[in-house]
């Protein structure tokens, strides 16, 4: 029994370790760690040229809603999680002449960015540089009933990317505004889009669109799936450490499957960042 008590009784080393852990936790709790919940809305102008869909470009303004969580720890580590959702009609340039040339477009993105302050580039007086990795997934579905069995055209890619950012601030009257600029460049992706005919075997009771999409999925390097994302944000502080934001994001992607797709978008978003 004594032996057991001796083992269970807190040794000086155990007590010291516990004290260190508690101190660290307290320090961490008091460190400059901020988390913002971002609610944004705006518009995205899309242009898409998809050989599986049409020989001409389709374009349109898509209302966009975005939800996100942004974390910053002591100005050394930044993480972003964003989920923009878009839905609208896109049309060809000659839509007024040929009203059948339209498509319903739905797009969902999930972007996770993890950045650490870098010492590779010297900080400026007003800002700091960050480097890191990011994970980007998007599902872009276009529905063109005029194409009959080939009506559903889609792109779904998940990419591992490198990201770099610059975060700085400047004084405007009594407020200190933050500006943030990020570029993300996917290196390795896994994704799917329609193949040569964009039609699955409708005469096969054991086949459907999801199985067809799964069959066409493949790993892509930068050569077969290229994407670039540029984001610029300006944040204006309001009460209670909350912020108002305006951001502009430009994206371009191209996938060289049997039928090539090229898409570009400009998104202008207004957001409210609430401290949580």
């Amino acid at each position, binding site marked *: 029994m004594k032996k057991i008590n001796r083992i269970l009784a807190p040794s000086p080393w155990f007590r010291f370790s516990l004290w260190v852990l508690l101190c660290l936790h307290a320090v961490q709790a008091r460190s400059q760690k901020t988390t913002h919940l971002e609610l944004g809305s705006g518009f995205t102008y899309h242009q898409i040229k998809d050989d599986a869909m049409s*020989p*001409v470009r389709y374009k349109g303004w898509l209302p966009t809603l975005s939800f996100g969580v942004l974390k910053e720890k002591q100005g050394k580590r930044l993480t972003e999680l964003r989920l923009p959702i878009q839905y609208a009609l896109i049309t060809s340039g000659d839509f007024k002449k040929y009203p059948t040339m339209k498509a319903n477009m739905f797009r969902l993105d999930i972007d996770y960015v993890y950045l650490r302050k870098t010492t590779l580039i010297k900080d400026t007086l007003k800002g700091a540089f960050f480097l890191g990795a990011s994970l980007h997934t998007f599902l872009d579905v276009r529905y063109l009933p*005029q194409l*009959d069995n080939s009506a559903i055209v889609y792109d779904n890619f998940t990419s591992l990317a490198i990201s770099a950012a610059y975060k700085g601030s400047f004084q405007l009257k009594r407020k200190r505004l933050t500006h943030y600029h990020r570029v993300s460049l996917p290196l390795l992706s896994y994704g799917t889009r329609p193949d040569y*005919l964009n039609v699955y*075997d*409708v*005469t096969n009771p054991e086949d459907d669109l999801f199985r067809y999409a799964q069959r066409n999925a493949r790993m892509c390097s930068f050569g077969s799936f290229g994407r670039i994302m540029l984001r610029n944000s300006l944040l204006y502080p309001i009460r209670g450490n909350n912020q108002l934001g305006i951001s502009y994001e430009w994206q371009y992607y*191209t996938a060289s499957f049997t039928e090539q797709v090229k898409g*570009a978008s400009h998104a202008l978003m207004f957001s409210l960042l609430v401290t949580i």
Partner: protein
Amino acid sequence: MKKILVVLLLFVFTACEDVFIEKDPPSGNVTNFDLLWKELDRKYSFFEYKRINWDSVYTVYRPQIHNNLSREELFEVMAQMLSTLRDGHVNLRSGDNISKYENWFLDYPANVDRELLIRHYWGDYHITGPLINTIIGEVGYIHYSSFRNPISADNLDYIFTRFKDTEGLIIDIRSNEGGNPKNSFKILERIISERKMLYKQAFKNGPGHQDFEPFHEVYLTPDLENVRFEKKVVVLTNRRCYSAANYFAASCKALGITLIGDQTGGGGGVPAGSELPNGFHVNYSASVSLLPDGYNMEAGIVPDIAVNMAEADRTKGIDSIIERALLEFK
């Protein structure tokens, strides 16, 4: 200066996707005609099977195209070119008109008379979803006029429960021009007792006329959960059975179900669709389907018992094809 450079760089990156995305092709008649010809050249699946020289078709029709043609005139020439493919699955849509090829049934006897069916065979028929159903003598009868109209599990539960004391079942798909093949499988799943191969299918996968993926076998799995029908079944066909109805007839053939009537009209390739810069849309066969014995389904499915409706019978109110089918249950 630095700031201006940064702004300029940003502008160059963000506002010049024209560098990355090529401009639209000109929408002139010649461009549209060439794109249509090329799209079919790359994707249509029956050039070799039908022995069509698509290059010579181009040399016949291309000289008729010039940029002064009206939209309707362009449509007319394009439709004429497409009719050389002799394929009901090939059609051009302009928004104002749809081209069609209908010789797959026009040159053959109709072999069905709906008024005669209503007056002399259907009696007090039930309409269950898209299925007209009745009992003729001791035999259950279903008439499915189009596979475009979806059937539900409840529809089939009702009909097969109604037919539980019958001697067998006649499925009449005469003049069914197709629709969604998945609707037809819902019936067959209740009839078969084990997973069976229906046909083989290969899609085009490259621009050459013989560029196809390897053939894959298409199977049907039985539905053992819902109300089933396990007695003898026969299927009635005519030349106006096309596309999904052709696939249905082919499936029945592979499953050992007796086909009675006339050969089906064909439509043995899954249609795909494409768009032209001038807003025309074209559908075309994009696959080849073979029965398990290698027979190309584009030619139509040959019945096991060939019967035409005799005119003398028709004037007496007799449907020769149904009468022959009823003999199968005696």
